[in-house]
């Protein structure tokens, strides 16, 4: 029983991290119909840059802020200069964003060195409580808390603000929004920056969670985020959150009980969903 509870908490924490990555991917795809293969690279950049700031300043919070800033800046650069010119061409889009993933991963190796970097938690987060037989690790609860906050913030943004209204309308019908005199390109840019910032935040939180980071985490977690988005339904925030939890928890159990097929479990889940509900669990159409 204790093992089950521990695994579930681990899974939820991992799920929160994946959610940070998947939410942006899903939002960007839902609104712009761009599947950003470079999204995982933003995760890796957030991790590396954030950790660099963290080791320079010694403050974890500043590291997190640094990660969000670098994510947003990179997001702005990518959207403005590289993705905008290929909006209308799906084939070029897939290829360009894939190329970006490659270049950004290599840039990490150039700037931060090709070896993996180990990360220590700050002491105030590096505690755990023993409750009955269940070990509650403070950092995991912290990650879950951030995940919940971001989810609530996104929900608020989407449901209660004008920008959210435009985004939701844009997901339904882009042309109509444009016809009403709203500059949808600008909204695209905001959403892209938001998604990139969240991805970088996820990367930074991931770094001390796993203890080591390497340049390939971008590719690995990018694929996981994609699986989540497919299962949850492109463009659906609640779907992404549920699917992220599902994938996180399932992954935690699979790595514990059948470690060799852990990745395959999520892949099979995605196949199943794609076969029977191609639009995802909560997706429309």
């Amino acid at each position, binding site marked *: 029983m204790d093992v089950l509870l521990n695994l579930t908490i681990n899974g939820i924490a991992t799920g929160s991290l994946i959610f940070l990555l998947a939410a942006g991917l899903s939002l960007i795809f839902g609104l712009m119909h761009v599947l950003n293969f470079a999204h995982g690279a933003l995760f890796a950049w957030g991790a590396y840059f954030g950790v660099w700031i963290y080791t320079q300043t010694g403050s974890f919070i500043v590291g997190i802020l640094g990660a969000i800033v670098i994510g947003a800046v990179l997001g702005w650069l990518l959207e403005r200069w590289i993705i905008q*010119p*290929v909006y209308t061409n799906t084939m070029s889009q897939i290829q*360009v964003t894939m*190329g970006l993933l*490659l270049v950004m991963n290599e840039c990490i190796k150039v700037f931060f060195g090709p070896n993996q970097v180990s990360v220590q938690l700050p002491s105030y987060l590096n505690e755990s409580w023993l409750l009955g037989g269940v070990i509650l690790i403070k950092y995991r609860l912290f990650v879950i808390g951030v995940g919940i906050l971001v989810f609530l913030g996104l929900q608020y943004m989407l449901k209660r603000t004008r920008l959210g209204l435009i985004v939701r309308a844009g997901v339904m019908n882009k042309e109509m929004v444009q016809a009403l005199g709203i500059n949808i390109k600008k909204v695209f840019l905001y959403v892209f920056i938001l998604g990139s910032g969240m991805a970088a935040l996820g990367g930074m939180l991931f770094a001390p969670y796993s203890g080591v980071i390497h340049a390939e985490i971008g590719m690995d977690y990018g*694929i996981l985020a994609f699986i989540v988005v497919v299962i949850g339904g492109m463009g659906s925030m609640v779907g992404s959150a549920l699917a992220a939890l599902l994938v996180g928890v399932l992954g935690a159990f699979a790595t514990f009980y059948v470690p060799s097929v852990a990745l395959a479990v999520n892949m099979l889940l*995605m196949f199943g969903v794609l076969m029977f509900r191609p639009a995802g669990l909560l997706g429309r159409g």
Partner: protein
Amino acid sequence: MLTKRLAFSRWWMGLIVLLLIGFPFVSDSRGALILLTQIFIYAVFAMSYDILLGYTGIISFGHAMFFGIGAYTTAIFLHRWDHSMLSFLISLVAVLVLTGIVSYLIGVMTLRLKSHFYAMLTLAIAGLFLVLAEKWRDLTKGSDGFTFYIPDLLKDRTALYFFALAFMVIMFVLLKRFTDSPTGRVLQAIRENEQRTESLGYKILHYKIIASMVAGLAAGLSGSMYAITLRFVNTAVFGTNVTLDALLMTIIGGVGTLFGSILGSALILLVHAGLTDLAKIHWIFERWMIFFGALYILAVMFFPQGIVGMFRQWRAKWNRG
């Protein structure tokens, strides 16, 4: 006019092949010989990718899996059984059977999906193959890989050179015939307009599966040839970089032109060799993927028709006067 142009390009191809046949007799540079052998083999891999990207208009990020299956199948046959020519030929048959089955199954499962999903799924499936190869250490020896002996006939670098050249020429002719066949024409119609082709009564999925199988078979064969030239195999053959190499070669050379893939393969491998030499001067050249990645992004954005496409455009302009 068309036949004249065909005859013209055939004349050029013949000349190039003759030059390549003559090459080992005039040059005794072992490095150049090995580089050219690799170019021939990668050219076949790039051509197989072009069947998907250039002729059918689908992007796969998992093409390395067929390359890897080919490389491992041949390597395991030669390592476990014996290193005779017979065993090599049987391994080629096994490669065709295996890649045929795998590409069929994956095609049936994934080719219904929209291009984004297909690209991501193939990336994920290739990732699974990589994990499988790393975990199944009894068979593959994981990322350490293993060396093996190759048939005596192919041990001589010059013999292998001619063998690879013949391989490329044969595959070029076969794939050219495939793309010019009625099936190939339907594939190009799908690339141009999927809905219209479907409304003309063609089963899109059926044709896409054919394309992916042909591409998979050719990629598998190029993988076995690759293993033969290295006499070594490890899990790197399943890496995403392998797929991206093919993508880059196809794009640079010119999509939808088999000859472009050959040109692209030559160019990329030559540049790669040059950059590896430069790495001794400055460490930044060790990260040559940055250069290729940037080149690739720029090519997709500003230069989507590739070298052969550019050349054709010039010629068309010139002919019009």
